[in-house]
């Protein structure tokens, strides 16, 4: 359907946006959508949304999987592999270098200050991400109750979270949610 220039363009673009995807890959999703749907017309908006929903619901590194599925649509299996590498390769090199730097100054006084300032903000963001997910997933009081029960159980006990996911799946599977 498309020549070899398409996968090269896609891979190069993914490598670029993954290097600047501050705040996680979802922040550059709108840009990827523009590139794939509007600029190149490799898939429709609906297909792009479906790939997102699929990637969110399978276990594993979901943004890498989503980009792989896009690569697969554009250029089959080689496209999938190339997209996967372009998505995690550049950020991994950056993570490694940054951690080395952080670790080298672990006892420096400034690092204590940065930690005291940084961690609360990012944890507020993590909790907000959970709330955003809850807003999307909780369609009624029953599913909201599942969210609250899962949070409360995790906070109060060390029960394996898998039981809560299974409970959510089972309740929804028999039509209770």
């Amino acid at each position, binding site marked *: 359907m498309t020549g070899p220039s398409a996968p090269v363009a896609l891979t190069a673009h993914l490598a670029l946006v993954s290097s600047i995807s501050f705040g996680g890959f979802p922040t550059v999703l709108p840009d990827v959508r523009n590139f794939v749907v509007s600029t190149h017309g490799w898939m429709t908006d609906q297909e792009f949304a479906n790939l997102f929903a699929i990637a969110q619901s399978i276990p594993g590194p979901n943004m890498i999987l989503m980009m792989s599925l896009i690569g697969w649509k554009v250029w089959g299996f080689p496209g999938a592999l190339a997209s996967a590498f372009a998505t995690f390769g550049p950020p991994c090199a950056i993570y490694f270098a940054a951690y080395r730097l952080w670790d080298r100054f672990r006892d420096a006084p400034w690092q204590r200050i940065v930690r005291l300032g940084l961690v609360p903000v990012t944890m507020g963001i993590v909790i907000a991400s959970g709330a955003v997910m809850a807003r999307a997933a909780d369609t009624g009081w029953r599913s909201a109750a599942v969210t609250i029960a899962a*949070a409360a159980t995790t906070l109060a006990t060390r029960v394996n979270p898998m039981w809560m996911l299974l409970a959510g799946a089972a309740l929804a599977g028999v039509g209770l949610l």
Partner: protein
Amino acid sequence: MEMRGAGEPVTLTALFIGFLKVSLCGIGGGGGIVWARRIAVENRRWISDREFADIVSLCQFMPGPNIVGIAVCVGAKMRGAVGTVAALSGFLIIPWVVGFSLGVLYLKFAHLTVLRNILGGIAAAAAGLLIATGIKLLTPYRRRVAALVFATLAFGLIIFGRLPLLIVLFGLVPLSIAVAGIEQARAR
């Protein structure tokens, strides 16, 4: 929490398997943090809650999929560069093959209602797990008023202010660090 002694290095296989578990168990956006904390902090006790919160925060500030960053950083902390490769391989290779195959299958069956309902139920529980993990990672800082204020601000600006993540991150963090700096200077 009690830590491993320095004379007892974590094996590369343990890192591979640990992050393989993190990867396979994490469902939905952000689920990885739940499982990375469960395995690296609670079960294996490789690192403390405080160190884990450091790593998560560091990764928030870097480009890329943050959960992958957790594997890179924990691997680097335990065993250096080879540790990173082991953790990353565990995190990526098998889950990628499984997830990619599932994704291709899903593309064929995405219209089934039961499947979509079940996924919705999982997502509802997963949201609760994520909220609880954020709260747990915040608990080492619970006695510091400024920490609670900034966590609440970050939460509120995203949920009620509907501001983009990057604006919240780069707007609040300098302020938050400045307040922490003033506190430290006064304490001295």
